[in-house]
């Protein structure tokens, strides 16, 4: 049942998304006031401020929003599919494969487009390896898939360390930035926007089946869910979404793990609400984190992955604590 609370939550998240985008456009080394920003967006006129907003901040803001939304959606799906609250978009080794490929491109001195392309290829390669190795059997495949993913990730980790320890100092700096997740080179591509929209629609179309899957594969199957094909669809969608996110901004941690849990804790447990909410909150969260990363010790820019953890950890702990206090009072 859709309740007024659900609708209010969605409405509030839309408001937060809009506000976070405006804050991101206004903040930076050239601060722009809210009224200036609105007039600037409204009518075209020449000037440095407009150039900064439209050509620098706008693409970066949208890249951040798309990346955050992709990661949060992928996190929701992985947590349900693997039935593991610790699952995140990278748990099956997607970021490891992307990282090795991206770092190799950095080592070869290639440009940002080539780095992004090789990251995407690395992500797809890693997905292929993990799914190929874990086989296609239905029963207890979640655990085998999880183990395969974790082990393959460890392998990628070793390769990443080899690349880091054997590279020249100046390329190590860009490698570390890439590994921590960074939006400074990011531009939203048509591919990533398409993957986000198509992925969102696919997930919404099987949202109620995801509610069933939440209570176990047998429960879902006995209620008419075709578990095998649903799992394939969801793994495919989640992997592609993660691959796009990693390609846009490197391996940004925390968004995919924390955002779905935050929403579940405040009552969005139904996937028909949780899925759109995650996209909105994941996007807003990363946009805000990137605004902080750009401005907190300007002119130096921090990698956004550091900020997602610094904001995300206390925010999550506060929600977890207030939720525990609430349920203690109820019982």
């Amino acid at each position, binding site marked *: 049942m859709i309740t007024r609370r659900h609708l209010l939550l969605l409405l509030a998240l839309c408001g937060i998304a809009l506000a976070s985008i405006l804050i991101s456009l206004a903040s930076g080394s050239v601060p722009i006031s809210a009224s200036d920003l609105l007039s600037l967006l409204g009518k075209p006129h020449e000037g440095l401020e407009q150039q900064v907003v439209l050509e620098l901040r706008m693409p970066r803001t949208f890249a951040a929003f798309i990346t955050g939304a992709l990661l949060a959606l992928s996190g929701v799906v992985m947590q349900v599919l693997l039935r593991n609250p610790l699952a995140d978009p990278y748990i099956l080794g997607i970021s490891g494969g992307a990282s090795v490929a991206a770092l190799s491109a950095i080592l070869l001195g290639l440009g940002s487009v080539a780095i992004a392309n090789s990251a995407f290829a690395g992500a797809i390669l890693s997905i292929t390896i993990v799914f190929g190795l874990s086989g296609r059997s239905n029963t207890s495949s979640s655990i085998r898939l999880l183990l395969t993913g974790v082990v393959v990730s460890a392998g990628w980790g070793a390769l990443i360390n080899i690349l880091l320890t054997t590279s020249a100092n100046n390329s190590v700096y860009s490698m570390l930035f890439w590994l921590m997740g960074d939006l400074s080179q990011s531009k939203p591509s048509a591919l990533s926007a398409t993957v986000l929209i198509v992925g969102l629609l696919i997930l919404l179309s099987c949202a109620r089946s995801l*509610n069933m899957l939440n*209570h176990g594969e047998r*429960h879902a*199957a006995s*209620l008419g869910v075709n578990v095998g094909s649903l799992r394939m669809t969801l793994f495919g969608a989640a992997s592609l979404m993660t691959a796009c996110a990693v390609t846009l901004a490197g391996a940004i941690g925390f968004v995919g793990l924390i955002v779905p849990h935050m929403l579940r804790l405040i009552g969005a*447990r139904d996937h028909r609400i949780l899925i759109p909410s995650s996209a909105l909150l994941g996007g807003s969260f990363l946009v805000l984190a990137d605004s902080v990363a750009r401005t907190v010790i300007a002119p130096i820019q921090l990698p956004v992955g550091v900020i997602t953890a610094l904001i995300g950890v206390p925010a999550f702990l506060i929600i977890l604590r207030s939720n525990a206090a609430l349920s203690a009072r109820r019982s």
Partner: protein
Amino acid sequence: MSDSPTASIELLSTKALSLCVAGKLLMNDLNLCVPQGASLGVLGPNGTGKTSLLHALANLQGSSSGQIQLLGKDLLAYSRKELSLLVGILMQSADDEMPASTLEFAMSGRHPHLPAWRWEGKDDLARVSEALRLLGIDSVRDQDIRTLSGGERQRLAIATLLTQDPRLYLLDEPSNHLDIALQIKSLEILHTKVKNESGALIMATHDINLASRFCDQILLLIGDGQFIYGDRADVLTTENLSTAFDCEIQQFTKGPSQFFFPAT
């Protein structure tokens, strides 16, 4: 009293069904015939395949050989969705790692009845509320399922099955976690529903007396693929039960009812 097969259509039948799990033969050449309105009790020692049989009948686990027919049509010819409108199963245990309220969980029984994009409506909510009320758990409708007691959780599973509203009810140890009054009450609810709506009920249980009270037919599994199947009065004898359980079982008669208990 058993229905004569010619008077009613078989809801479920199996032909030469054999089940083999992990290389172990559980039952061999089983020919079940469960007419509409009937109740079948599945009894037998641990590990003889009661749960595997129920899962095979719900097509959650492939049968090793033989055929299962539902309303005269091969079980495998039904899509998952069609099957979920006809067959509902009460599992022995629940996987509750993820949060959900009692009401949300019970609502999952309406999933097979709704098209993909449709939200549950007033009618669905009324059915769910009615099922929760029948099982006496409407007071915990907003509580997280992970905080329910064992008995409340079991009644929620039964309520969910009622909201699913199938023709064939497969019950795996329905009396689990329930006190003696609730055991009788919940089985009476299901039994009455099956009789009134010409459904059928198959329950696997360790409680011989519960099976004796509610079932017309009994399938007594002995192990190594062997079984005794027939009308209640023919199967539930001290001799059969003592052989199956490898333990001396005594019988006690009071009025029309038979009671079985291990010899002291």
